[in-house]
């Protein structure tokens, strides 16, 4: 028997639909994904971004992976491999967390959902699917708990924006007003019984992520039903371009940028999702030591004060022009109408108001440390 090679570029079940809609496609972490939709559909990164901030947009996020842990010791397994405290989760509740290496750096960030008494679902990043699954499986062998990779079972659609709840409510019998942020429910969606819906997202906006069977027919049907139901709210299909600018305004980390296998939890500023008081989890000891030794760098928000756009990987300079850090993510912020960036800088330069520079094509361009998140959605 010859080995079957994985296709070099993977496609979600909605790939044909995106192409038919005229989306501009790019390769992202090995996936052929829409970066933006045509202007004729209300698309373009800026329009898509604004639709999510002011109305509603939908995203195909089926490239995200899903790992289920189920069994008598599922909680103990989740506690061992993740930094947040999953024992606090009620059934139906979710939390932001991360899988860590023993040195306290990131395997990946994840959303942990508690689906049942002894059942947890981890939603993981596209680029780290295999690595994450292997990591979770290999590090939970001592527990009485089944670990299943469900990544290919779901088409995951994110419905995001202040009108997301109104849109999805038209398509489901579940009472969405009863679902709080970072909680999940199940209900019939577009006739599909027992569909999982989480009030989660990656846009710093209210919204839902729904999980439907990943066959092409069902996926296309649901995608189109959402677009039809969303017409009255001005729904716009959104690509990875807007997904990135939306998450950047909200300072939501992206693996390989703000977090990675060389950045630890304290540096990334994710302290509040790390429950060091938990008895044991992978990475805990190293993090405790790192805290004792002192944290040397910090993730800060920058706003350009001079004309120029900071981009991923650009150098950060002090006012004397010395290289002191680097940009992890930088972009124009369509809603805020500013050029913003996240960057690692020495701890002593993290204070809000600190003037710095970003090196753009050989020139130091003025920037200042600003409070983050850059954007916070208005409280209702």
């Amino acid at each position, binding site marked *: 028997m010859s080995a079957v090679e994985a296709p070099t570029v993977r496609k979600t079940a909605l790939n044909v639909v995106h192409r038919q809609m005229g989306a*501009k496609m790019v390769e992202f972490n090995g996936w052929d994904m829409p*970066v*933006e939709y045509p202007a004729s559909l209300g698309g*373009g*990164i*800026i329009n898509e971004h604004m639709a999510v901030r002011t109305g509603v947009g939908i995203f195909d996020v089926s490239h995200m992976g899903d790992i289920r842990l189920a069994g008598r010791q599922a909680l103990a397994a989740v506690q061992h491999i993740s930094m947040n405290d999953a024992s606090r989760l009620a059934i139906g509740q979710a939390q932001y967390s991360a899988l860590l290496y023993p040195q306290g750096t990131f395997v990946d960030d994840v959303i942990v959902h508690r689906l049942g008494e002894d059942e947890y679902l981890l939603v993981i990043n596209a680029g780290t699917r295999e690595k994450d699954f292997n990591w979770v499986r290999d590090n939970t062998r001592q527990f009485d708990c089944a670990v299943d990779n469900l990544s290919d079972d779901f088409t995951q659609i994110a419905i995001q924006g202040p009108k997301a709840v109104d849109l999805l409510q038209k398509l489901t019998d579940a009472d969405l007003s009863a679902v709080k942020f970072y909680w999940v429910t199940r209900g019939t969606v577009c006739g599909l019984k027992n569909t999982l819906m989480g009030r989660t997202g990656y846009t710093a906006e209210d919204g839902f992520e729904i999980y439907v069977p990943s066959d092409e027919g069902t996926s296309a049907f649901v995608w189109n039903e959402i677009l039809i139901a969303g017409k009255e709210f001005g729904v716009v299909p959104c690509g990875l*371009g807007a997904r*990135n*600018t939306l998450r950047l305004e909200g300072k939501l980390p992206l693996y390989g940028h703000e977090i990675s296998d060389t950045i630890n939890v304290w540096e990334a500023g994710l302290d509040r999702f790390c429950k060091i008081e938990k008895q044991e989890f992978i990475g805990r000891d190293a993090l405790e030591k790192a805290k004792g030794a002192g944290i040397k760098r910090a993730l800060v928000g920058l706003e350009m004060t001079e*004309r*120029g*756009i900071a*981009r991923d990987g650009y150098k950060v300079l002090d006012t004397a022009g010395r290289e002191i850090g680097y940009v992890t993510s930088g*972009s*124009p912020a*369509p809603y805020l109408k500013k050029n913003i960036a996240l960057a690692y800088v020495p701890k002593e330069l993290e204070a809000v108001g600190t003037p710095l520079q970003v090196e753009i*094509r050989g020139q130091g361009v003025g920037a200042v440390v600003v409070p983050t998140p850059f954007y916070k959605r208005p409280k209702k």
Partner: protein
Amino acid sequence: MSYPTDRKYTREHEWIQVNGNSAAVGITDYAQQSLGDIVFVEAPKVGAELTAGKTFGTVESVKAVSDLFAPASGTVTEVNGELATSPEKVNSDAHGSWMVKITLKNPSELDALLSAADYEKYVAEEAGH
């Protein structure tokens, strides 16, 4: 997508429209479409020297940074200041949004550039890949 025949094109998707010894330079409709929402145009100052085939500025969309390549050598006589404040004009009218005007140093350089028909063919091939 349009390919006006009153100008010539580079394989890096700039156009150049000659008027006597002077020429206007911009990016093509195909280029603006590929880049997406344009948010930044950085052009050289009046008096700067352009060298054919070399970069002379930058255009940035929300997502991407792209160099501008000089279709021909010459001295910058005028810069389209409107694009500094309204770079989105390049999206709405790429062929009307010249970035710089130059005095041509060596008009015979233009012979190496693509005609509208050849550029259209070139784009079709590139897009097909």
